[in-house]
């Protein structure tokens, strides 16, 4: 079950859009994706070093032509400042996940080992559950969720990917 919850579609791309920090910008971007029928795998919005500018990191599924259309259509939105796809550039990508897993006393040792291997942290504990925090690549979170699923994942929340180009290049 975990696999179908977490596995990415075969062809996914990370797009970064710098947008004006105005009300309604998210609606414009989300509306564009809905209207043109593009699939969003994940979308995060956050502040940047410039308070007037927000950064959207969007993971989309589709081939090269679809990606090109998405990039161009995004760029047409008046409030979009810059769009970058990371097709040809080395990037670092990270995602944060919180996983509430069932933790029976007999399983606790094993779960803690898994958490250690994946360099996660247990940030809450009850008599029946752990809440685990983990950051890393999408694949790492997928893998960890898969391993934990045998104990019973009660709840999982993932932030979606944020990405940045390696080296001195900026979006």
């Amino acid at each position, binding site marked *: 079950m975990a696999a179908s919850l977490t596995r990415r579609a075969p062809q996914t791309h990370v797009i970064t859009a710098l947008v004006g920090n105005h009300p*309604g910008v998210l609606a414009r971007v989300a*509306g*564009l994706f809905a209207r043109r029928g593009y699939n969003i795998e994940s979308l995060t919005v956050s502040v940047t070093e410039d308070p007037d500018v927000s950064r959207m990191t969007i993971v989309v599924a589709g081939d090269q032509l679809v990606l090109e259309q998405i990039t161009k259509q995004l760029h047409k939105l*008046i409030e979009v*400042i810059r769009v970058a796809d990371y097709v040809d550039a080395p990037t670092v990508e990270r995602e944060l996940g919180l996983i509430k897993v069932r933790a029976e006393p007999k399983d606790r040792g094993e779960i803690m080992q898994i958490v250690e291997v994946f360099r996660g942290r247990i940030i809450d504990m009850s008599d029946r559950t752990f809440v685990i925090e983990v950051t890393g690549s999408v694949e790492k979170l997928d893998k960890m969720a898969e391993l934990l699923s045998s104990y019973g994942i009660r709840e999982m929340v993932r932030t979606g990917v944020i990405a940045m180009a390696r080296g001195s290049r900026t979006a």
Partner: protein
Amino acid sequence: MKTGARILLECLRLEGVRHVFGYPGGAALPLYDALYDEKQIEHILVRHEQGAAHMADGYARATGGVGVCLATSGPGATNLVTGLATAYMDSIPVVAITGQVRTHAIGKDAFQEADITGITIPITKHNFLVKRVEEIPETISKAFHIARSGRPGPVLVDVPLDVSLAKMAWDPSMYPDKADIPTYKPTTRGHEVQIRRAAAALDEAQCPVLYVGGGAVLSGAEAEVRELAERTNTLVTTSLMGKGIIDEHHPLSIGMLGMHGTAYANHAVHNCDLLFAIGARFDDRVTGKVDRFAPRARVVHIDVDPAEIGKVRVPEVPIVGDIKTVLAAMLPHVKPKPWSAWNDQIMEWKSEFPLVYPSDGRLYAEYVIEMMGQATNWEAIMTTDVGQHQMWAAQYYKCRRPHQWITSGGLGTMGFGLPAAIGAQVSSPGTRVLCLSGDGSFQMCTQELMTATVYGLPIIVAIVNNRSLGMVRQWQELFYQERYSHVDLQASPDFVKLTEAYGGFGLRAETPEEFRNALSKALEVRDRPVVIDCVVPTEENVYPMIPAGQSVDEMRIRENLEELKVTVDTEGEEWSFDREERVLEQFVALRKGGSSAERGS
């Protein structure tokens, strides 16, 4: 100190606005109060806000400038939606100003509140909600800049009641000289290398065709397109939106291409080795089945909108830029070419498959259109509604210049023709304005006849009255076993009496002779609208026709009408695009002698 409403009007003046089409209401009261004293801007009171949006659109198309409409909040604003969507699909610069409930009431489901900026996101190029009176000048300046630059389009500005009532110190020198939008810088100049490659491609091609769309009209590139065509002796086909970019009486014009385009234009595009696309977007009504559209051609594609390049067909030579600017930069590299054997071939197709219609003593729409053209020396502005009459007009009304042909191409909005004609006539009082409508379309915005009467506009409307929703009827005849579901309009008002009730001049014609007489009477009227009810045969269809999703191989012309009728078992199926395609597949299979059972389901 002046109110926001007063300042807004002064900003419109500074943008050169002379006419505003609108309808008042509660949230727009301050704007209308300011209009009460306004001397430089004439307000045209419409009868329905949809009419206001179409009039602003028609005004923009006739002039090449920006059209402005005005409505109140809630239902006033939502009534603009169809008009804005129409303008958006055809990239027409319109600025719509709407009243909104007071800022503190927004989101509280106040009386006549609608989230019009939310509603219009997908059908405007951009929109604004003005939060403070101080934002008005900058917002209006941005709205006009966005509407008219790059790929033009409609922009909506939503102004809450308290913002238009609020006062601030103002003088016109505070208006921005130039809108500064750092995130919006449309490309105008094309890439120099690509421009040279395009010129070389045209030089090398044995069988080139220019395929010109509405983008060339919007850019004002008629002189450059004609020069390019004449210097290289390349024949020009246009999309529905490109009509008039070259005089359609010009020997290099081969008319419209696509579903109901001329057979020779479609054969030319199908067989060309270079398709030189200028401000055209490879619409499905043009291409039919995309992978069988111009299958042997290299493609040059010039468009101001980068997203159009490669959206449908990936071009060998892409050029992003303003059409006029790009062609002007290209022309110095374009070498003259003589009339070619390829052109002779197209001319042969033209004599083999001319546009024809019956001449059996009855009145036909095609005749109506030809007579209207001849009577006005083909110089009148022609607006249309949507349906069979629109396609006949596209085939038979031979435009001499751009901005003369005003039709809802992308959205296909019935009810567009009459208000668009009003907008065009307001913009160009010295120009004859004709409107070709249908008995279905005309009833979608009939109320604007009153507007035409009140302002004394001598528009001539010819209603192609086949007592039927003709285009739907045609598809039902050809693809739905003649199951004529809800297309019968026998029950319609008497259009002559209706026109008279609105204070216009009503006429009826049932034969060619009656139509000629009616038209000459209509041309004498100078102070009010004229409607000619043209009674035409119900069963007349539009040909040539390439069924949706097919290619030129499946083109139907008048000679093989019987072959068009197919019987397809569609019992118990929901209508869907998929089904429509399957029906067409079966239709093609039948035509090719296959069995529908094999191809079906």
